[in-house]
């Protein structure tokens, strides 16, 4: 057994060395690595894959590596120096990152609107309202009849969850006292896709970014009930990480990505994205496209 055991281990090692060499050689063209931490909606829709391909074609020596996570963890990666640039959508936390000196600059590059999604029979009758009115109505109807009207929240401190809380703030209701304690208020603690599946199973209402909902639409019996309300504006921003403050980030490549996102080539990719797969655009470019209402 001894000899055979040794032989097995040697064979395994040889196979692994070969595999490793093959994978490293085939996978990576570029020698300069740009780590991009992004919110899930940009990756899940597939937009970033297209941007990556075009960016790497333009800068063949840069290898863009995308890590998709919620806005919360993406910013954390930036703070720890594990990402060179973050692409996120939560204005307050973005401004904090700039104030701390970790992010160099907010570069808004695209926007769309969150949708308020719900069952097609709309048990709380929110169609045609603005976002804050609709939230109050869902709460009132939910308190009265929690079996019929439910709101499914991400509850995960993501950018989408932050926007949801901002709408609750706009209603004047106390989020932790009045909303979170409600029997009708369900916190999934999961990503947008999973939350939509839960909303579908329970036939509840939820807030979703447009991209993720459109890619899930076919799997659910849910509908867009409210879109394009002022409070539903969702702006995506690129923030390079300051290499003077955080160890060893690749600020040059990060600046190149910002430049590319705001160039007419990058803005065109954003503008055209989604037509082929979803029959409609998912993002509006912020530099070349029309500005959203009340945009500061």
């Amino acid at each position, binding site marked *: *057994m*001894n000899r*055979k055991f040794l032989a*097995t*281990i040697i064979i*395994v*090692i040889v*196979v*692994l060395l070969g*595999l*490793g060499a*093959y*994978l490293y050689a*085939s*996978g*990576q063209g570029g020698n300069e690595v740009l*780590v991009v931490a992004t919110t*899930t909606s940009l*990756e*899940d*829709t*597939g937009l970033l*894959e297209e941007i*990556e391909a075009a960016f790497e074609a333009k800068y063949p020596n840069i*290898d863009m*590596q*995308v*890590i*998709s996570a919620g806005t919360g963890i993406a910013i954390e990666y930036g703070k*720890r*120096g*594990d990402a060179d640039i973050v692409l996120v959508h939560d204005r307050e936390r973005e401004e904090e990152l700039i104030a701390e000196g970790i992010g160099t600059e907010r570069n808004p590059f695209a926007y769309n609107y969150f949708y308020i999604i719900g069952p097609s029979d709309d048990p709380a009758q929110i169609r045609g309202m603005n976002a804050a009115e609709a939230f109050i109505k869902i709460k009132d109807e939910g308190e009265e009849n929690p079996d019929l009207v439910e709101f499914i929240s991400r509850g995960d401190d993501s950018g989408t969850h932050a926007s949801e809380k901002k709408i609750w703030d706009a209603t004047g209701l106390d989020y932790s006292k009045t909303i979170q304690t409600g029997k009708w208020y369900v916190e999934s603690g999961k*990503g*947008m*896709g*999973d939350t939509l599946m839960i909303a579908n199973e329970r036939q509840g209402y939820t807030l979703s970014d447009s991209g*993720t909902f459109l*890619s*899930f639409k*076919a*799997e659910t019996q849910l509908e867009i009930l409210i879109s394009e309300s002022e409070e539903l504006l969702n702006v995506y921003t690129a923030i390079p990480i300051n290499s003077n403050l*955080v*160890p*060893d980030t690749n600020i040059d490549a990060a600046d190149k990505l910002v430049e590319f996102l705001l160039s007419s080539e990058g803005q065109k990719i954003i503008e055209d994205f989604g037509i082929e797969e979803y029959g409609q655009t998912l993002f509006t470019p912020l530099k070349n496209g029309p500005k959203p209402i009340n945009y500061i």
Partner: protein
Amino acid sequence: MSEIIEGIYQAINLILTLNPEMLEITLRTIYISLSSTLFATIIGVPLGGLINFKTFKGKRGLVNIIQTLYSVPTVLVGLFVFLLISRAGILGELNLLFTPTGMILCQTILIMPILVGFTINALSGVEKNIEDLAMSLGANQFQTIYTIMKEAKYALMGAVILGFGRAISEVGVALLIGGNIRGFTRVITTTISLETSRGNIALSVALGIILMLIALVINLILNIIQEK
């Protein structure tokens, strides 16, 4: 339920057409999980042997701790290694975060308790009289240990297979340490997680089927080695 049938169909299609991206992800999955299993085996089996054959104070407590670690959540191990190898961490200089090497390191740590613990179990299961017999036939200490290891080979192989199973199927470490970077650290489990959040349910089922097939093939190979 139609997604499952569609998934089976897609799995067959992906395998027959040898989809290049799929092939690359599959090879990477095998590379990472097999490497972790190899390292954990090389370190874990002798370590388990050492713990089994030595008598020392607190041995029972140590074995208890090792067995408790069987159920350590993968994300917890991931988080621990993340804090260690993140650029702001102690080993940040090595730039291991978001690389296949970092994933191998973390999975090795994850499955080490299984290898160590099951080695102890396997060896202590060998009857005492075999040890006595070997000694009485004039075997030295090394030869005795070797004889006992040989007796326990099936149980030891079981430990390796179990460790491999945990490494190839886990997603917590792969996401947190690997980051699911396309063309670099993406493995089958993280692809399933991504495709599910993209709403491609059937594709996720197909990938799951492929993962099970790989596990089947590798287990068959390990069994053939064991039988001979």
